[in-house]
């Protein structure tokens, strides 16, 4: 079944902002065979009926999931299968292998050789060419969906229908229809959905969140995210062929928008200005948002030579900023000094907080030298993200990046794409005359 899911995405001519077809195909997932195969799992019950789960058979009564997962040492390891053996799968495999109480038991990919190589590298017994095969053969408790963005929803639903929880690479899905289908399936099958918004686990961003939690800047009113990065070049990828310029938002957008959504909630209204700055493709997105709890801005520049990742938060009582590249968090609060001194005093305070933040970051890197990876920023984020998911799963709680947040980020990305689409279609001839360089600002409301 997994193979058929992938085959359903037909390549189409390049469209920068493809318009929605009036009758988009319904997202239908054939789940009956899987449900028949594992009736108890399909209904959200933990009792295992076969396969290699001998340790699970020691349960003599049917337990609801939150009980099944409680007690770190009392219960057997969670069995994890990876769907997709591409680049990111290696990091998932490494992270899963490093987590306590979690066991990597299978890798599936339409390219059987890739699946086998990854499985062998990490000493995993099972490699498969489809999700259905992996579910039948390995019976995972959790499936990581590591396919291209527009191939997440269907296998996620399949896995949930088969009784597995899912951990999905960002973005959770790529359309409103998929959002609703995933949400409905999660409720219907009673499964947990986590999304890998790994940058929300960046230690610097977490420190920024702590500053906000400490109430030092009061209510968050506005968030600006700068995401100017060397990576994210999707212009030659199948995703670009299928989704046009929207591929930028689907591939790279979830990173900055996951930060923004965490701080001020889902985007309700968006305005976009998309331009071709360094490439002959829309590589630069300037976005303005009205969100649930404030306003936001986002700059996305991909395939740049210099990295600038920064989150600036304006609160009612101060400003906090996280420089994710340099690893600093700075804070400027309502002053306690008189008008004569406050500029000097507050600048000195800012300088001190910057120096102290840099020193703390350096000390943390030095501390990591013995274990290796002292300069690795990506690994800790992934370990934080995946680790938090399994921690929540074991505690019977919703993951930090929950289905709700995953949906909010996806919908926010879709509104940004829609804003860019609207600008192009509404401006007609004027826009067409300048479309080589600019699509003008318009809005798209929820």
């Amino acid at each position: 079944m997994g193979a058929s899911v992938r085959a359903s995405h037909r390549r189409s001519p390049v469209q920068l902002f493809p318009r929605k077809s009036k009758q988009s195909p319904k997202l239908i997932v054939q789940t009956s065979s899987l449900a028949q195969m594992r009736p108890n799992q399909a209904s959200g019950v933990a009792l295992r009926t076969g396969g290699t789960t001998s340790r699970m058979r020691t349960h003599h009564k049917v337990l609801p999931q939150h009980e099944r997962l409680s007690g770190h040492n009392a219960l057997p390891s969670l069995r994890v299968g990876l769907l997709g053996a591409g680049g990111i799968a290696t990091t998932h495999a490494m992270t899963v292998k490093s987590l306590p109480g979690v066991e990597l038991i299978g890798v599936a990919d339409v390219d059987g050789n890739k699946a086998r190589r990854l499985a062998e590298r990490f000493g995993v017994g099972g490699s498969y060419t489809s999700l259905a095969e992996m579910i039948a053969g390995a019976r995972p408790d959790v499936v990581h969906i590591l396919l291209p963005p527009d191939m997440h929803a269907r296998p996620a639903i399949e896995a949930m229908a088969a009784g597995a929880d899912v951990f999905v690479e960002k973005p959770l899905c790529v359309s409103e229809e998929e959002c609703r289908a995933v949400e409905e399936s999660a409720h219907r099958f009673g499964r947990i959905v986590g999304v890998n918004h790994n940058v929300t686990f960046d230690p610097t961003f977490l420190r920024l969140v702590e500053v906000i939690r400490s109430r030092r800047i009061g209510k968050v009113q506005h968030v600006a995210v700068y995401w100017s990065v060397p990576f994210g070049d999707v212009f030659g990828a199948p995703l670009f062929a299928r989704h046009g310029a929207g591929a930028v938002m689907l591939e790279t957008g979830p990173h900055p928008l996951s930060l923004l959504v965490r701080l001020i909630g889902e985007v309700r209204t968006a305005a976009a200005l998309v331009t071709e700055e360094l490439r002959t493709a829309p590589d630069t997105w300037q976005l303005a948002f009205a969100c649930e709890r404030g306003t936001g801005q986002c700059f996305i520049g991909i395939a740049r030579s210099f990295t600038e990742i920064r989150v600036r938060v304006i609160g009612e009582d101060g400003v906090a900023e996280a420089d994710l590249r340099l690893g600093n968090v700075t804070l400027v609060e309502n002053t306690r000094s008189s008008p004569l001194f406050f500029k000097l005093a507050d600048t000195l305070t800012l300088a001190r907080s910057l120096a102290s933040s840099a020193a703390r970051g350096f000390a943390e890197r030095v501390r990591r030298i013995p274990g290796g990876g002292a300069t690795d920023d990506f690994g800790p984020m992934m370990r934080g993200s995946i680790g938090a998911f399994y921690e929540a799963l074991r505690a019977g709680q919703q993951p930090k990046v929950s289905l709700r947040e995953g949906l909010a980020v996806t919908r926010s990305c879709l509104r940004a794409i829609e804003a860019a689409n609207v600008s192009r279609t509404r401006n007609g001839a004027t826009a067409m005359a300048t479309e080589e360089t600019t699509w003008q600002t318009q809005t798209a409301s929820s």
Partner: protein
Amino acid sequence: MANPDCVLVIGGSGFIGRVLVAQLLERGCEVHIMSRQKRRGDGVTWHEGDVTDRQSVAAACDGVDVVYDLSMAFGERWDDYLKSFVQGAENVAAVVLERGIRRLVYTSTIAGLHLARLGSITEGDGHDPKPELRSWYARAKIMAEKSLNRLHHDRGLPVVIFRPGIVVGTGNKLAHPGIGVWTSPTCCSVVGRGRTPLPMVLVEDVAQALVLAKDALNVDGRTFNLAGDVRPSAVEYCEIASERSKRNFRVAPSSPLAIQAFRTVVYLGKLALGRKDNVWQSWHELKHELLRSSLDCSAAKELLGWHPVADRDEFLRRAIDCHLRPLHPDDLRL
């Protein structure tokens, strides 16, 4: 009420005035309001006027039984204070005497006291004996009180004077200027450590005392201090405000000596430059800002039957919660 009182509230559009007017209307009074700018209000008669203009006061006092003088003004020179507070109070008193009005209720301020010494201060302790060392505002209020008391003594002016403490509640703001100097919306600079209980009083309780004074017997010529029974310090106030608003309210304590040294340097600097906006702020004034004395309000309770809110939660709800905005359930601060 067979013959409802007709009352004039001068300054009825202000912070205390609005609450007072509401309570008077609840009691069935016919309410007239005099303010510098004419406005509209349901159930009240509005008069445009100024206490510095005796004619406008007289015009507003037609048929009035009781006059409340809550007038407030600030200025840039001592003459402005003299005119607004002292001459203004005398103008109102003169009209009250002329018209034979039953009672004049005048609101002064605890700034007229000297709250530097430890211990309790009652109405009998009188106002600050050294008004010449106080701020223009305090000095003007002291002079106005003196003038009204003299008129009561000499000509039988039926005046009752109130000295409300730090009045809090709806209509004011969380960063209340009576607590200290707010260098920013959440940081309050105070003289001393900010641990002294502050003479706070709810605006509704002040209005209640003023209403009670309208009909109280044998209180002409009396002065009443008004502070509630719940008296948080500046530090406690900021801690409670922080907890309830989820903002970072904080106190910046300052040594009185350091403040006075700084003020002296500024004063000398301005003197050397020949600046005209140079006002000497005395050590005597600074000591008052420590607010170390405990304000005794038993006279108002005994003679007027005044009962300010004594329940701490109720007080905080009315003093602080009224300024808060609801938080979004997903707010990261929750």
